[in-house]
């Protein structure tokens, strides 16, 4: 086999390739169903609709790659929106800055608490984060028993710059094409790009793949796991900014549906639940796939109960398909004597 052909085969056999194919297929189906799918307006609307799940999925992907899982992601987003809207006073624009700082601090602290439970106390991640999800929920309900609160005007910068006063027409036109949500996602991508080129990025993969080997190689595994949880926190913080920018209020139950959908999206995007394998960027694609699936179900015009049911089935089918594809290809690649484990 020629060198080029074999590198092509390698590229095709990567799980990412199948994910990309599924994404393209979904895109085509959605475009057929929605006539104006590629118009700027509906593209912007879709970006806004998909942004929260994309951000939460990317954060979740980092934690899963490090060998953990975060069942508290949804309630963490809720708590951050409650902190933001409690600290902010609509009349005082400066309070927005304090709110940002306070919310970021709370977010990182949630990451640290999860990280200590997982890394230092060695409690299984599922248990730690399931427990902390109630801590976050309780705190959020304490701050905001019912949805509400207030936000400073300039928080629209995280959702729709057009509704702010005193903004130039040019900027308005620009954000009508490139919405703030897109920039939140790009900030997330840039953050992971930088991290993945540092030690911590490599170590997150190493610890997730085999924490004993990582430890024997001199890596402080507990610290790496904590760092992964804190990186996740930053993504959750970005998602919360989007929500508050959109609704100008906080809600203690707003993030609940995000958790499991983000885990499903990450797996659809090729993140192995066993840790150590997958790409955060393809987790983003996984989130897009899942969001498009929801759209397609919506267009199929079936009742909400069926939408939910079918949505669940599709997640399982998608995960099974992508895993079967990966297994099949690994068997071919592993031809020189390594069997699957």
């Amino acid at each position, binding site marked *: 086999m020629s060198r080029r052909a074999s590198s092509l085969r390698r590229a095709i056999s990567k799980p990412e390739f199948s994910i990309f194919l599924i994404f393209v297929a979904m895109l085509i189906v959605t475009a057929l169903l929605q006539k104006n799918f590629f118009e700027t307006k509906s593209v912007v609307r879709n970006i806004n609709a998909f942004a929260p799940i994309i951000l939460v999925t990317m954060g979740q992907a980092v934690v899963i790659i490090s060998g953990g899982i975060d069942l508290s992601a949804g309630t963490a987003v809720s708590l951050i929106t409650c902190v933001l809207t409690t600290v902010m006073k609509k009349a005082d624009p400066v309070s927005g800055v304090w709110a940002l700082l306070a919310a970021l601090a709370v977010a990182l602290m949630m990451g640290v608490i999860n990280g200590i439970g997982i890394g230092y106390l060695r409690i299984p991640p599922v248990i730690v984060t399931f427990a902390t999800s109630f801590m976050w929920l309780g705190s959020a309900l304490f701050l905001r028993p019912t949805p509400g609160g207030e936000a400073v005007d300039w928080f629209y910068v995280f959702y729709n710059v057009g509704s702010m006063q005193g903004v130039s027409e040019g900027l308005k036109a620009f954000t009508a094409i490139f919405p703030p949500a897109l920039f939140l996602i790009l900030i997330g991508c840039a953050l992971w790009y930088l991290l993945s080129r540092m030690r911590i990025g490599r170590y997150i993969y190493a610890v997730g793949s085999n924490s004993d080997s990582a430890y*024997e190689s*001199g890596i402080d595994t507990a610290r790496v796991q904590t760092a992964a949880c804190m990186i996740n926190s930053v993504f959750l913080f970005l998602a919360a900014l989007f929500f508050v920018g959109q609704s100008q209020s906080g809600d203690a139950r707003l993030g609940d549906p995000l958790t499991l959908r983000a885990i499903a999206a990450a797996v659809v995007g090729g993140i192995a639940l066993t840790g150590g394998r997958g790409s955060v960027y393809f987790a983003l694609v996984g989130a897009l796939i899942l969001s498009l699936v929801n759209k397609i179900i919506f267009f199929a015009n079936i009742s909400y109960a069926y939408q939910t049911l079918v949505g669940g089935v599709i997640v399982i089918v998608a995960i099974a398909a992508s895993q079967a594809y990966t297994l099949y290809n690994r068997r071919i690649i592993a031809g020189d004597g390594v069997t699957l484990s």
Partner: protein
Amino acid sequence: MSERTNTVKVLEARGVKKNFGGVVALSNGNLECEQGRITGLLGANGSGKSTISKIIAGVYRPDAGEIRLHGKPVHYRNPNEARQDGIAMVYQNLSLVADLTVWQNIVLGGEDSRGPFLDNRSAKERARQIVDQLLPGLDIRKTIYELAPGQMQIVEIAKAIFAQPKLLILDEPTAALEKAQVKSLFDTMRKLVAGGVAIVFTSHRLWEVLEICDDVTIFRNGENVGNIDFARDGKDAAKIVSHITGEEMKARARKRRQIAQGEPTMRIRNLRYGELLKDVSFELRKGEILGVGGLAGQGQRELLLALAGSYPGSTGDVEVAGRAVRLTRPSTAIRNSLLLVPGNREQEGLFLKHSLFTNIVFPKLGLSRQPLFTPRNRYAEECRTIVSTLSIRTSGLDAPVRTLSGGNQQKVVVGKWLTFETNVLLLADPAKGVDVGAKRDLYDYILRQVHEGRMSVILYASDNEELVDYCDRLLIMYEGEIVATLEGSEINEDAIVAASMRVSRSAHEASS
């Protein structure tokens, strides 16, 4: 010793003790190593070699005792601190991360940075330099899970060398290597030693130790029982073995080869599995030990796994005792009395965290008819018999298998089948990383069973010596095919190597 007055003691470990949950792993460990010398660390499985190595490398903390590096006492809390002091270790079970590439593994834990970012270019270059010495042609961009076991071992060694250690501990680095690879490892070790590195080298192969080491320290039952300086005391293999086993060396237990004329117990025709097995056909006669050999990773392991029903996708005609059988599930294989002793005991053979009792009883519970309530006492009695038959060293039936030494773990894997009716025992490298004494126990037991006509055996061993000693007939595999069959007096190490490397290709194609 006037010529050695100016040597530098790199490592001194004195009176090191370590217990694991009641099992004494190390009662009085002493080890010294000097700059520019290779010290062999010998002993049976469970004698404490790996334990003292891991204590020195900072993985475990000793319960008592003193470790000095260059004369200064050290107390490492983790492997990183040991690494900072110039101690690198090649782990018996490898410290590789399967999802990272070769070069990423080699630099793992010691990455260079330029500013805040990783310096990947220099990392790749340095990794390539080291790999080229050990195994030219290995693509450093490959992911670890794509590699064969021997290649993984090389990467593990490269990783330790990358750390530029002053003290290099090699814990059984050669068990998964072919002879040529061992040679190039030795060349590299000699270069390191010439550059002033001190090396601790562990191996179960005596010829390796005799060839490469300057002196040896021998452990038995958690303490060291002998130090032999080759320059001073000479190389006396018998003396070393008697130190290891604690008894006088017995002659190599070569089995009288018999060409079994019995009828075939099993017939395999056109067994295929993807790229791994291509059209394998052979017969296994009753009371025969059939060897499977060849270079590492030519499909031998896969052949045994396929026969054990581990590959649902495999195709081919299999006949056991005259009946056609479809071996697509492990349970069918077991019901037809094809029992596998897998090579990778930790992943495929044992529940490490569970007790000895559970491990031995488990296949019974799953596969044969059981009374509604498990007769615990009767099974415990059977377990005790198995433990004494195979002389498994354990603190009790409730001890987690994890706490047993490697050789004893392997005995448990064999032991769990003892209460079964065996037609064919499939042994996939059963003595890998098992010491001389335990290996002899194991094979003695199997030979006895075969002689009593109770079973036939298919044996794959990475060590040709085992094949020569125990096989009646030997199949040589190459790239998933059987390329030669050796019988009777044809079975010797030279013939195996020649056939494995396909020295006279056309002759073998005619014979197969």
